[in-house]
């Protein structure tokens, strides 16, 4: 395998509704910033890959218009995934491994504000048996949280503490949407939104995006003082069938973590893609993180959750801490689909 590193990261200042911006206007400055941080021109990028969703844009082939954000003229070697940008990064990493590219630009974005996100996400379900019932994403997460509580794997107090910890951590993240939290006692005094979930248990609805530059070997060393080397990366999927799954587990995370080599060294920082508080408990367990691990110093998805970007942002947040020297080895996790169905895990190192 070739050594490939994240050499720069940029993201939007995440907001509930970037009403005045279309997707190109929202992501283009972020792409430019990522290139500038690496000190490169777009002509030095061998491969470009993005992630987005037509269902969020409300438009078939929406990414066809958004490619304008990279100014692909003269024509570029490019691809797009209808997945979180973490998988776009995986495709770019594979491309670099083939030897056909040494450098890549990866970006992803989502504007959830124009639609009713929980109902939009219900369109992600089995069209014959689940979709007609319109179970929304929060109701489904509520089923999972209830299963966790019934199994004694978490408590509503622990869930509130997770919300509090993430949103307090977000105070130091200038890109976060929700910064700071009421006390755990105050959180628990709030009514249920979708029993047993309270509003604080759910990620906010966010418009935003992220861009990352990848480079291989010597090029990475030229483009960053301290590249964040991708030492392991893997992704796996579990069943969609809610009735056939143990909702309190996500074996695809454990499998991806083992393949990525999470346990092969200390974890200075972990950024996990858990849009609901109880899911952080599952992800931590599946990743095998220690109880005192430094998880989501950015505030995580509970502080800003731009769909299609929140997973790639996890990679970016870990990489940024390696790039700036505050961490040496970190783990990033991204998820896709309902109830942690599909998962990607990456291990990044400074040395």
């Amino acid at each position, binding site marked *: 395998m070739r050594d490939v590193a994240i050499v720069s990261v940029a993201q939007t200042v995440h907001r509930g509704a970037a009403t005045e911006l279309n997707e190109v206007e929202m992501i283009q400055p972020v792409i430019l910033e990522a290139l500038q941080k690496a000190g490169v021109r777009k002509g030095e990028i061998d491969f470009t890959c993005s992630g987005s969703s037509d269902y969020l844009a409300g438009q078939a082939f929406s990414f066809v218009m958004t490619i304008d954000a990279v100014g*692909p003229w003269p024509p570029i070697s490019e691809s797009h995934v209808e997945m979180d940008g973490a998988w776009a990064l995986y495709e770019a990493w*594979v491309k670099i491994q083939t030897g056909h590219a040494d450098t890549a630009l990866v970006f992803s974005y989502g504007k959830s504000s124009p639609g009713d996100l929980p109902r939009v996400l219900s369109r992600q379900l089995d069209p014959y048996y689940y979709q007609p019932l319109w179970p929304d994403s929060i109701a489904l997460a509520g089923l999972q949280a209830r299963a966790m509580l019934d199994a004694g794997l978490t408590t509503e107090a622990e869930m509130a503490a997770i919300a509090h910890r993430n949103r307090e951590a977000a105070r130091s993240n200038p890109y976060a949407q929700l910064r700071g939290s009421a006390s755990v006692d105050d959180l628990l005094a709030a009514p249920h939104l979708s029993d047993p979930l309270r509003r604080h248990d759910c990620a906010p609805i966010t418009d935003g995006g992220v861009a990352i530059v990848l480079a291989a070997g010597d090029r990475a060393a030229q483009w960053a003082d301290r590249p964040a080397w991708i030492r392991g990366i893997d992704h796996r*999927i*579990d069943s969609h069938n809610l009735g056939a799954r143990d909702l309190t587990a996500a074996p695809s995370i454990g499998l991806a973590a083992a393949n990525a080599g999470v346990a092969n060294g200390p974890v200075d920082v972990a950024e996990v893609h858990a849009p609901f508080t109880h899911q952080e408990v599952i992800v931590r367990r599946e990743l095998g993180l220690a109880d005192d691990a430094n998880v989501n110093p950015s505030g995580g998805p509970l502080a800003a959750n731009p769909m299609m970007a929140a997973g790639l942002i996890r990679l970016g947040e870990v990489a940024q801490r390696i790039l700036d020297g505050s961490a040496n080895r970190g783990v990033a996790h991204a998820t896709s689909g309902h109830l942690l169905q599909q998962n990607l895990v990456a291990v990044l190192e400074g040395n």
Partner: protein
Amino acid sequence: MGNRVAVIGVGQTQHAAVRGDVSLPGLIREAVYRALDDAQMTMADIDAIVIGKAPDFFEGIMMPEGYLAEALGAVGKPFFRVHTAGSVGGSTAIVAASHIEAGVAERVLTIGWEMQSCSEAMWALSFPIPFQQQLVAGAGGYFAPFIREYIRRSNAPDDIGVLVALKDRLNALKNPYAHLHEPDITYDSVKESFMLWEPIRYSETCPSSDGAIAMVLGSESVAEATAAATGVRPAWVHGMSMRSEPSMASGRDQVSPQAGQDCAADVFAQAGVTDPRAEIDMVEMYVPFSWYEPMWLENLGFAAEGEGWKMTEQGATQLDGDLPVNCSGGVLSTNPIGASGMLRFGEAAMQVRGQCGDHQIDGVRRALGHAYGGAAQYYAMWVVGADKP
């Protein structure tokens, strides 16, 4: 550049306007099982799955891979979704092959599919305000002006499109999987079919199909072992490339887009092809509207600028011509959009493997699979061959 890759299994569905006899996963599994049978493998043998389709709105399922994971044997495996507009079938095959070239997998299942009967594709492709000015109806409405410009520049006779449509629909009669089987089609019936988007007539436009195609791709050692077991030669990937350009840019030529030229130049360079007309034995190219055959012949470098229509007129692209094009009947006869590009890639591989039955060309050593999408701005191509590269 990386590890060698070969196509070792191909399977496609019976394509039709409405496949009401199968569920959505049932449709895809029809292609998957045929591809696995061709490779003498089962789902358990597969390391990773790379799947592609066109807009999720066509079936009304957002990111349907999650739902499909179990039906396609993906649980516990890497399962990857590509979407690059109409070129997606080709791009998906390339991303799948890249997994082997990169050394991250040895046996990759790749799938392209669409169940267009779930929706009305033409209106799904007619972008509403504020995304685009409300000027066009369907993809044909978008592309018709560029075809007219091609005719103006090249002084092509006005029946070249008729000849392409007649050829492709006659070829489809030799392909049992094709959607359209029109045994009574004639030059006159095509020419007299009603005008949809000047100069595109009804019989010169692609149908809307339900269908899927799957391929099993293998590493060098897997391909050789499979070939020894099945007795069917692998189709080795000699080159593959993707290129994209903007919908609108100053200086952009939508008649012969630069991205298409660049992509062809790249894929031929990788394959060591210097004279495409002489060195490529057959082409499966993405021709959803008849006139795109001569336009792509020029764009890909098989004919000089303004000369592509002469190849069509002289019969060079017929089954018995020197560069047969779309022997399967092509997109003009079968168009499940997310599968259409991979059908081109898969049919090219089948020709190399000698699996095409009545539409097989004798002695195909090297074939080109081509797909395009968006506003003629996304390209995916591969060259597959009988010889190990």
